[in-house]
């Protein structure tokens, strides 16, 4: 069981959260010319790093806020959690 520190609620069990994937993926800007490659990178292509990985989680059975988590994908160690609006 992972223990994730929600920046709003404190330390909670993983099964209160749902996973939202890579937090570094950025949607191409609206009303601008977007190349097909940019869309591919946004929708499909992922680095899926081995090691430190910045990712989104939602505290779905708690405050329902989205948060950012920095976690090691090889050891599952969690280094840092911040609000979704903050940089990690």
């Amino acid at each position, binding site marked *: *069981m*992972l223990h994730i520190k929600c920046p709003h609620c404190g330390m909670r*069990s*993983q*099964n209160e959260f*749902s*996973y939202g*994937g*890579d937090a570094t993926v950025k949607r191409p800007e609206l009303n601008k010319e977007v190349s*097909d490659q940019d869309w*591919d*990178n946004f*929708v*499909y*292509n*992922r*680095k*899926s*790093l*081995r090691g430190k*990985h910045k*990712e989104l989680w939602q505290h779905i059975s708690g405050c329902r806020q989205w948060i950012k988590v920095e*976690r090691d*994908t*090889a*050891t*599952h160690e969690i280094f840092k959690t911040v609000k979704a609006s903050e940089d990690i």
Partner: protein
Amino acid sequence: MHDDNALFSEFGMDLWRKMSQDLNYNVMFSPRGIINLAHSDAQMNVFARRGNSMRLNGIDAVLLNREEVKEIIPMADFSDNVRFPIFGGLMQPSAGTARHDAVAWGYARQADSMGVDIIQNCEVTGFDVVGGKIQGVRTSRGDIKVKKIGLCVAGSTNVLAEKLNMTVPIETHLLQACVSEPVKPVLDKVVTFGAGHFYISQSDKGEMVMGGDLDGYNSYAQRGNLPTLQHVLTEGIAMMPFLSKLKMLRTWGGIMDMSMDGSPIIDKTHIEGLYLNCGWCYGGFKATPASGWTFAHTIAQDRVHKLNAGYSLNRFHTGHLLDEKGLGTKTWIS
């Protein structure tokens, strides 16, 4: 079923049937039949459509009603007051399972006797690419000059792609499986639960072999996490209540390539001489012989075979997805 997936898998079935003879090694191939259970009228309709699409491609499929399912697997929960009543199921009688270790050993022994060098404990640390052509591979035990490389490294595709400055439509995730203590013969089919993600069969030793969902977050840790295992086994007990009396013998977790449409990739790449075989999600084992056969063809001929033409890397760019479940991207989310 999409035609690309159906025809590819059926080609693989033909190879499975003669694998023990081809490898001169008993892989304990057991086409005992698979039943996918349905738990609503809507699901029965979907399975009827799916069964028809299989039969149109020459694959056996039988739609079973509740009574017919009960005759085959009476140990499933057919009582009145259950959350997910069994309405029926779709059975593929020719499908089944094999002993996974024997398949790996059989392939390794036969490949070795045909002159293939299998080098264990040897990590790939980098690649030499000159002018868009693959020239060599660097490993922890020395460099090797090459003309062609087949990259077929489920679970590490993202890591090696990064060394080639490629990003691929794949995330690496963790999947668990488990076996119970051995019991006397009780189940002679492979059965899947239709209201969640759970499968079960009984091994020749008597263990109940079970598994289901991914752990649900990117992972390279080859060990599982308890909440997912508990969730999966809850589904199992809902389907077959007697499982609650069994003791768990072993659980384990492995890492796998989750592709963005749930179907694999067997294709050439933008680097000349580099061929990619990845993205098998949950379904790599059944595809073993067909995957190897078409990948060998692709490498030797430097062009894809019509059986793996649909498994192109480019399909994510062109929109020709093979999205079997109709879920769109990130099929692991469900």
